[in-house]
């Protein structure tokens, strides 16, 4: 479904964030990407939907070359790929409902959307998605009045509005406490299992990765160093990925 070929990203100033990363993602997988901070996980996520322009390599989404797509094509691809962010990235002053509806912007009539006019079935769908993540009662609250966990659930509802084929979750639980993290990841797991939506997720904690992932991929200094099943990440690999000094911390 998603093929990443020899992806390289060098930022201005010479920082080599990604070095020749090649990866294939199948439909329905819950792929977890792990690695130290600064190993290139976020860059990899953002190169998939070209929020960051790769310096070299190709990203093929269902056979379409994302890296060479025109702006029109890119928008059409982007609306099929939803993204959930570490810092939620909600528009603070807007209501929860407006934030969720903004997930549908790639599909609705652009001129109507400029006047905040959405078709009633879209508003229905938004309310259904909010119910699915359990915060329908907050639909008209301002987004910045919600707690972290609630905001992330709004983010997931926004992602669901796109009816995506792929969800990219960039460290969705790094800013949340352990219990809320499990709550959010359970939502993602349910979406992956019940709707068949492929999920690629960056995580910091290995036991979260083991618990929710069907496949684990590890980055170190921009290079892919591990690709396999969660159970295969033993102590040796742990040291390899996180460094000799690292200790495993549990969040279960």
């Amino acid at each position, binding site marked *: 479904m998603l093929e990443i070929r020899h992806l390289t990203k060098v930022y201005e100033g010479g920082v080599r964030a990604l070095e020749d990363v090649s990866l294939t993602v199948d439909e329905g997988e819950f792929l977890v990407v792990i690695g130290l901070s600064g190993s290139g996980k976020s860059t990899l996520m953002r190169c998939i939907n070209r929020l960051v322009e790769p310096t070299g390599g190709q990203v093929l989404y269902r056979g379409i070359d994302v890296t060479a797509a025109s702006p029109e094509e890119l*928008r059409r691809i*982007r609306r099929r790929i939803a993204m959930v*962010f570490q810092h939620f*990235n909600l*528009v603070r002053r*807007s209501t929860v409902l407006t934030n969720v509806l903004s997930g549908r*912007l*790639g599909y609705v009539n652009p001129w109507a*959307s400029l006047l905040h006019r959405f078709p009633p079935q879209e508003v229905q769908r938004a309310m259904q998605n909010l119910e699915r993540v359990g915060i329908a009662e907050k639909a008209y609250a301002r987004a910045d009045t919600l707690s972290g966990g609630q905001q992330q659930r709004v983010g997931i509802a926004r992602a669901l509005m796109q009816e995506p084929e792929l969800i990219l979750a960039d460290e969705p639980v790094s800013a949340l406490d352990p219990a809320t993290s499990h709550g959010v990841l359970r939502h993602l797991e349910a979406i992956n299992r019940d709707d068949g939506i492929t999920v690629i997720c960056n995580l910091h904690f290995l036991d979260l990765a083991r618990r929710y992932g069907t496949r684990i991929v590890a980055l170190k200094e921009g290079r892919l160093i591990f690709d396999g099943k969660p159970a295969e990440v033993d102590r040796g690999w742990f040291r390899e990925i996180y460094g000799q000094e690292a200790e495993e911390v549990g969040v279960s």
Partner: protein
Amino acid sequence: MRWGAMRCLYGSGWSVRLKALAVDWLIWTYLPAAALYYFRGAIAGLPYGRWLYGASIPVGLLMAILLQALGTSVGERVAGLVSEVPADTVGFALRRPWYRTQVGLTVALVCLITLVLGWRITQINLYNVFTRADRMANMTDRLLRPYWPALGALVEKMIETIFLALMATVIAIPIAILVSFFAARNLMHRVTAPYGTLAVGFVFAVGGAWLASRLVDWALAPLAATAIDVVLVRGVSKPLLMLVGLVAGAILGGRTMRHLIESGRHGATHGAVVLVTAVLGAMAAYVLSSFVAMVGYAASWAIFVRELSPWPYVVLAVGAVAGTGVGWRKSAGDSFPLGQVVYTVVRFILNATRSIEPFVWALVFVTWFRLGPFPGMVALMVHSIASLGKLYSEQIESIESGPLEAVRATGANELQTVVYAVVPQIVPPFIAFTIYRWDINVRMSTIIGLVGGGGIGQLLFQYQNLGQWRSVSVAVILIVAVVMTLDYLSARVRERII
């Protein structure tokens, strides 16, 4: 004792050394020059007086080198080469008090000399302040006995003043909002356009505008050219239709070019780009040389051509060649940073307009339209657009990029991204700035009458000229009362909204 800044210039970190030298040189050129300027009267009388100021420059350099050699230079401390804290101190190192450091003392010296010089230049004269107080007696007496019957005429003018400020602010707001998006770096730097589309679009746009202008003239030809309504119709419709022609031409040209580029006709597209850039180069050369001719020799292009031919044609040719040079190296599909250019141009225009106070703008508009509140309003409006445009655009630049990224990632187009991610974040600061601007405009409108801009200022200065201080007093009281009330109300409004 280290010797010579010159030797150290060849050491490592020469750019740091150069910066240190530059700082010292600057300081030690300023100090003697300022000291000399204090006695500028006497120096102007001397035969080579002006050269003395110039002498500060080598003196400054010598002082800089000398001080660096002695190790007591400020520049070195500023550049981080020498530290006031001894190198062998561990842990808490107490900073020496400012009056015991090189930097502190030098700064104090510079401030002192600057203040003394400033005192001289602004001709502070405390003697006059204290000995001429009795001349104020008459005026003060009259100011303290307001002539209330003058209130009638003043109130009408005050209403005019308030509306002046209101209209200026209200009309300026939508224009400033529009302009501010073009002056916001984070929005503009992403916009690029292919060279080919731009080149051909430009040509078609100019053609479209010209065509539209011809069309209006042809349509209005049979009507009387001096009738008021014909003048008005022509005056309004011509620029409007020209704008339409411009935009339509640009779109048409752009579409044609894009079609050509996509169908791979490289020869044709490249040729088009080269041709257009050659013409643009020649045009730029023409404009530049006309400007130089006008400013430098008070001549116009026609005189330039007549007197100095064939040079003007050489200039045009050089321009064309330069244009071709630029155009040749780019293929039609290469992207031109259109957004950056627009950003730079808009920012420059905004800054230049802001630097010119509404007073001066009012002078211009009073000559163009006639005396009255209208030119005053337009003057305030123009300045408000520039000021609000800058403030708004700075707000846009400081928004969180996270929500912007998120909305973009859903597949929204640029306009949708702006409406959903940018606009909600900038509404409170926009309102705050608008109210701030409204306050300023109210105060400005009370005095713009001085240059004929209407409003209460006109009456105020009239009374002052006639020496009717009692009426001036009433006017001032009225102004203070109204401005303070409006200030208070707008502060309350701002509180409620933010």
